[in-house]
């Protein structure tokens, strides 16, 4: 079959007929995968983690499908028809250098290697992403497999692989451009329509429109299912894509600390800060709390027991490790991690009537009350979205 697909350029000039090379599933796979890759790069901001994760899941599903399709799909989609040796790739590249590469109806040897690499790197990106998501966020199907530091390491690997994939994509695009120019044919159009000019006797693929339609239906259904929360949210009750596991709670703490401000969860500051806070209750940021001893006796142990050192959340772990050991900070907003995460937010946002001050976590963090501070549980009040993004 390979021979049938490999045609010398002189045949090409006759352009006797058109043959369907790329079936619908291959084309759908190609363009959806490319879109996912772009979307994933555009959603690096933690606020869009749910979209990023969805792009990843979709990419993973697509790659798994493509691996299967490489065995049962139409001729040009099968791996055995685009498996080339190093020598063949070298010969092909030499042909490119001399501006006379042989023409392949399906994948050429260099392109084939690029595809194998892209599939392999893509799959590694998905696996490292899932592990990182399960470790650093404690979310997804692999939640709890790794701890925070391991998850963080995995995400660094994930990022590194993504750069590698970006390089591969650029090489792939240059290959498409060079081959299109050398053979005077539009390969991008071929990936859209599926057809390429060819001799009459060349193998043609079936459209496989049924499988293509099923793929499209699955992608649309799954997207709707994943993002349905956005369709039903209200300005008062924002959609929260991910929920952290419930944190320890205490009624008295909520009532006393939550009377004047958000009841900041103990996991947001280390033990030494909470001890200092209770000791200095006479001058609690300029105000005397007058908390009676029996109240202090219940609240302080709750604060200490669930302080940041317990690493109940990603935020707790990151806040705690960011504070120099010799320092006892009383404000969460003075911790290096908090400062780093909020540095892009302008004064205009902080001063906005709906935000009021840096104390008001709940203005943007949907889950501030429960203290989980999930990455994707962030939503700037509608009318300040624009000011925040221009920063």
């Amino acid at each position, binding site marked *: 079959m390979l021979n049938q697909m490999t045609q010398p350029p002189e045949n090409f000039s006759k352009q006797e007929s058109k043959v369907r090379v790329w079936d619908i599933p291959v084309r759908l796979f190609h363009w959806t995968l490319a879109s996912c890759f772009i979307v994933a790069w555009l959603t690096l901001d933690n606020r869009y983690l749910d979209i990023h994760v969805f792009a990843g899941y979709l990419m993973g599903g697509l790659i798994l499908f493509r691996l299967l399709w490489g065995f049962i799909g139409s001729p040009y989609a099968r791996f055995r028809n685009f498996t080339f040796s190093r020598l063949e790739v070298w010969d092909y590249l030499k042909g490119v250098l001399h501006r006379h590469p042989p023409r392949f109806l399906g994948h050429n040897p260099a392109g084939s290697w690029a595809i194998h690499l892209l599939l392999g790197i893509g799959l590694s990106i998905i696996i490292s992403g899932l592990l990182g998501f399960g470790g650093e966020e404690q979310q997804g199907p692999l939640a709890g497999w790794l701890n925070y530091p391991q998850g963080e390491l995995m995400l660094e690997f994930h990022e590194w692989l993504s750069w590698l994939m970006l390089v591969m994509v650029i090489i792939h695009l240059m290959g498409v451009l060079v081959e299109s120019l050398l053979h005077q044919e539009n390969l991008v159009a071929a990936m859209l329509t599926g057809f390429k000019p060819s001799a009459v006797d060349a193998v043609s693929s079936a459209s496989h429109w049924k499988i293509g339609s099923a793929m499209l239906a699955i992608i649309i259904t799954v997207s709707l299912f994943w993002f349905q929360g956005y369709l039903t949210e209200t300005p008062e009750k924002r959609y929260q894509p991910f929920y952290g596991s419930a944190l320890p709670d205490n009624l008295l703490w909520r009532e006393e600390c939550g*009377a*004047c*401000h*958000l009841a900041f969860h103990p996991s947001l500051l280390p033990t030494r800060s909470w001890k200092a806070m209770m000791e200095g209750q006479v001058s609690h940021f300029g*105000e005397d*709390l007058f908390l009676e001893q029996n109240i202090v006796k219940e609240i302080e142990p709750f604060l200490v027991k669930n302080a940041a050192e317990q690493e109940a959340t990603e935020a707790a772990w990151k806040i705690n490790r960011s504070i120099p050991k010799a320092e006892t900070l009383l404000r969460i907003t003075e911790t290096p991690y908090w400062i780093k995460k909020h540095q892009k937010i302008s004064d205009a946002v902080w001063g906005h009537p709906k935000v*009021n001050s840096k104390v*008001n976590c709940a203005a943007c963090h949907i889950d501030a009350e429960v203290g989980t501070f999930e990455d994707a549980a962030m939503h700037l009040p509608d009318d300040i979205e624009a000011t925040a993004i221009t920063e």
Partner: protein
Amino acid sequence: MNRKFIGITALLVVIPLYAQADAVSELEAKYQSQGGGPFSAAAGEALWNKTFIDAKTGKGRNCTTCHTTDQTKSGKHARTGKVIKPMAPSVNPKRLTQAKKIKKWFIRNCKWTLGRKCSAQEKGDVLAFLKSL
């Protein structure tokens, strides 16, 4: 069955009112024993709206800074922006039902707003004003 239901509902309505009367009268008696009284709602309202200059910031503070001038509406904590539920018992029946809470907030808020403790007379007047709302 129905009668029982009415009875329980009546109790549920009456208990908070009773508790309010109870907490307020308990405190009024205490303030009287400390030399206060008779208490006037008008004097309480005047105090509520009076501006005190904070020694440190030089800025004016009064009860309305956080509670606003309309006690049937929610107020907002001056520094944190936290919503403060209405003070008027007619809108918020939980108000003035716990002597302990009233005492605590008098201590805290007198110190912040007036920069000193409130006198028994002042506290009694403010209570008279608030319970009339």
